[in-house]
């Protein structure tokens, strides 16, 4: 369809002020995937291949129904988009199409603390929802690293979680009901306001984590939980990464569940300390420490939180802790904020004057393994990285076995990027052997899609069949999660041949 015709059709649905087909707008949407941005530097043949044809700002369900009918009739892909903080290429318009920005659908429709639910539109900011829940003593706890900017629709689409998942769960655990516009234009409501239901197939969880491949979510009913009023935090330093991992799994083995427990490996400790003020720095090399566990407990009273923390410290004492440091509430807020920001801020480690030392990569590994397998996971992944001459940083939610790997390489070029992707594939095979998952919270999106068959085997075929049933014309976010096809750009073997 010609640009003007597309613009006119979309303007009729959304109003001209809510539609753009201007190149300078469209390219900003292509360019906001970091991995694609870097790959395009090495691989110019992929430049401008993934431009959307249009971007629309949706304001209500009725517009979305009209849009879906229009897209289906004209075979135009639709890519739903909320806060755009996803990390695995979920939003790359791989077959072009229309970006459906739902940030204007940002109303909290109902807060019912007596029945413990909220009803929200998908564009509601996570932090705004929790701010509104504060006076009721309630919260929606999954706490992704992007908590300042992510929106509920995106959290549901990616089944997001973060540092509090071990104790409080992931987004899926809180989704009670959904309203979804299906690719055929029909609107379904699945689930409801009740805290439990055993009636029929659990369709709502089919859409949670579906990354916009099955429909567009227009309303969400979430369970809310009472918010603990007190928190305390401590950091414990260990001589080795292995000691830290073993101590973490022993804490869980003793039946203790902290509110958060983060593994901060050697490079990550350096990265965090670069951002923290002197008095809050984590124990480091000068303390004979390489790795840290950052632990938070919470409760309705400081005493409860402290009792939990004391029990944790007792367990840890058997695993050679070198140094620990407790934080006041105010200090702890800053330390956890820096922890959340560290994944992105880590890139600065690779910039001048250290550019000859290493370059922060755009790949953030998101593997999850059973927590008792974390020491094995660390050993295995370190070996794989040696083989590919990559440096690796470990930071992650060790309390649920979800470890983020930050790759770094000495020379930023196509070959290093390819090595990184090959290492990632080898790690995926290793992780699955350990009983783990290739993506614990970031989703498969585009960049993990070629690894899904390693984890899911025959189940992937069923997933494809479901996608085909719901979206036979493949208009919903094509090229993601291996549900329809795996785009060329995903496979590192296409990027660079050894003989080049």
């Amino acid at each position, binding site marked *: 369809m010609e640009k003007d015709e597309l613009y006119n059709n979309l303007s009729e649905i959304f109003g001209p002020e809510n539609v753009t087909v201007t190149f*300078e707008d469209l390219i900003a949407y292509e360019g*906001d995937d970091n991995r694609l*941005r870097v790959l395009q530097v090495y691989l110019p043949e992929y430049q401008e291949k993934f431009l959307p044809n249009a971007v629309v700002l949706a304001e209500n369900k009725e517009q979305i129904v009209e849009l879906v009918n229009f897209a289906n009739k004209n075979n135009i892909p639709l890519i739903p988009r909320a806060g755009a903080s996803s990390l695995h290429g979920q939003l790359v318009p791989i077959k072009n199409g229309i970006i459906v920005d739902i940030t204007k659908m940002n109303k909290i429709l109902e807060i019912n603390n007596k029945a413990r639910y909220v009803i929200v539109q998908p564009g509601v900011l996570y932090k705004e929802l929790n701010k509104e829940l504060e006076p009721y003593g309630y919260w929606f706890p999954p706490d992704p690293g992007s908590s*300042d900017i992510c929106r509920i629709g995106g959290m549901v689409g990616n089944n997001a979680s973060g540092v509090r998942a071990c104790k409080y769960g992931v987004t899926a655990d809180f989704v009670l009901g959904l309203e979804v516009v299906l690719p055929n234009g029909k609107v379904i409501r699945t689930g409801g306001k009740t805290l439990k239901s055993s009636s029929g197939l659990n369709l709502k969880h089919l859409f949670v984590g579906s990354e916009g491949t099955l429909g567009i979510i227009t309303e969400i009913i979430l369970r809310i939980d009472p918010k603990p009023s007190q928190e305390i935090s401590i950091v414990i330093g260990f001589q080795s990464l292995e000691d830290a991992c073993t101590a973490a799994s022993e804490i869980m083995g003793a039946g203790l569940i902290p509110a958060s427990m983060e593994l901060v490996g050697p490079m990550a400790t350096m990265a965090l300390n670069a951002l923290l003020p002197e008095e809050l720095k984590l124990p480091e090399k000068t303390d004979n420490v390489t790795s840290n566990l950052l632990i938070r407990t919470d409760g309705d009273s400081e005493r409860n939180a402290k009792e939990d923390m004391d029990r944790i410290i007792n367990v840890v004492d058997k695993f050679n802790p070198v140094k620990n440091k407790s934080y006041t509430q105010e200090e702890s807020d800053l330390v956890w904020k820096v922890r959340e920001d560290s994944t992105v801020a880590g890139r600065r480690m690779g910039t001048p004057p250290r550019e000859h030392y290493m370059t922060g990569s755009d790949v953030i590994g998101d593997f999850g393994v059973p927590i008792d397998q974390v020491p094995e996971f660390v050993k295995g992944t370190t070996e794989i990285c040696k083989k590919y001459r990559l440096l690796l940083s470990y930071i992650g939610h060790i309390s649920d076995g979800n470890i983020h790997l930050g790759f770094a390489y000495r020379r930023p070029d196509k070959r290093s990027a390819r090595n990184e992707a090959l290492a990632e594939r080898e790690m995926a095979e290793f992780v699955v052997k350990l009983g783990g998952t290739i993506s614990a919270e970031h989703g498969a999106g585009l960049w993990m899609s070629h690894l899904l068959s390693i984890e899911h085997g025959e189940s992937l075929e069923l997933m494809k069949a479901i996608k085909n049933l719901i979206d036979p014309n493949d208009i919903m976010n094509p090229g993601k999660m291996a549900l329809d096809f795996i785009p060329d750009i995903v496979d590192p073997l296409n990027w660079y041949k050894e003989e080049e």
Partner: protein
Amino acid sequence: MVKILEDSKSEMIVCNLAGYCTVECPSRNILNFSSYSARGRLVLCELLLRGRIEPTIELRDRLQTCTTCRRCNETCPSDIEQYEMIERARAYLIEKGVPPPEQFIPASENIMKRDNVLGIDQSQRNDLMKAINPPSDKSDTLLWMGCMFSFRYPEIAKTVGTILNTAGYDYMMLGDEETCCGDPLKMIGMYPEFEEIAKRNFELFKDLGIKRIISPCPMCTKALKDSYEESFGETGIEVQHVVQVYDQLLQEGKLKYKTELPISVTYFDPCHLGRHMKVYDPPRNVLRAVPGLKYADIPTYNRENNWCCGGAIRIGYVDTSVSVSEDAMAKIEKGGFEAVITACPQCYPSLQFATFDTKVYDINEIVAAAMGIKELGSGFVE
């Protein structure tokens, strides 16, 4: 020389596209598309440098609608100077032949040909100086009034003089020798023109032996301090906003409050005084010391988290600017204050145009009223 876009290349690589800068971006909140957020603008800057996009009018509009509030810099976990990059990209576009918004052309011509942004006869600056009657003809401290206060709000300008005179503070003024500081030119990317103005001003300061400049205008203060230092290196001139002087004079007991002002107020941090120059406490100290004044910060949106008034883009993009002002006012109104006080000749009218019930004062009006040297006005456009 001011930094150019190419100098920002390594900063662009540091950007992880995390998007923390998108939610709090005042212009994106109005214009909605990602290309109008700091993240989107940075992507456009990078693609421009890589040659993937051309310098166009469309690109210019996406860059020039940035309200210069610098909120993006504050939210960035990687500490990237996003605003500065956007400003440099504006200059880059002009260099490549894409003119700034046409509405700005008269203003820039006024600055270059008539020595002030409004194009008003410079002799009015002499009238203002005469009315203020500064204590010295020659002093190493210069009161730099700025175009907006001199011509648009001369009554407030006179109040500034009266406050300083009453407190026995020594300073001189330039009368019609005061010109534009050049900041409006730099902000839209007219770097060579800014350099010309700045050089002329800086030479004058050197000739006069100026050691300290004080100004009621945050944009002038920022330009005379940071931008001139960027251009000429260490200038040897201390530059302060007048609220910093008032705070000091209060502490020294030279500025005294006599009159109670029993109203509930808040303070709207001007972007150029707050986020650009990190001056947060002095205005609060000045207000908290006023007898009877009930002071509280704007809920959530205060200090480095404050919203923007949108004033900086009023000439080029009036609709967006007004909408940003309305957003700011809505956040202020949530606090239920009788009045909002600011310290900037851009914020002052922007908030006045956006308000319904909340009174808007310049901080000089409050200080003068508390000193008992001037009655407090209505707080609305008159």
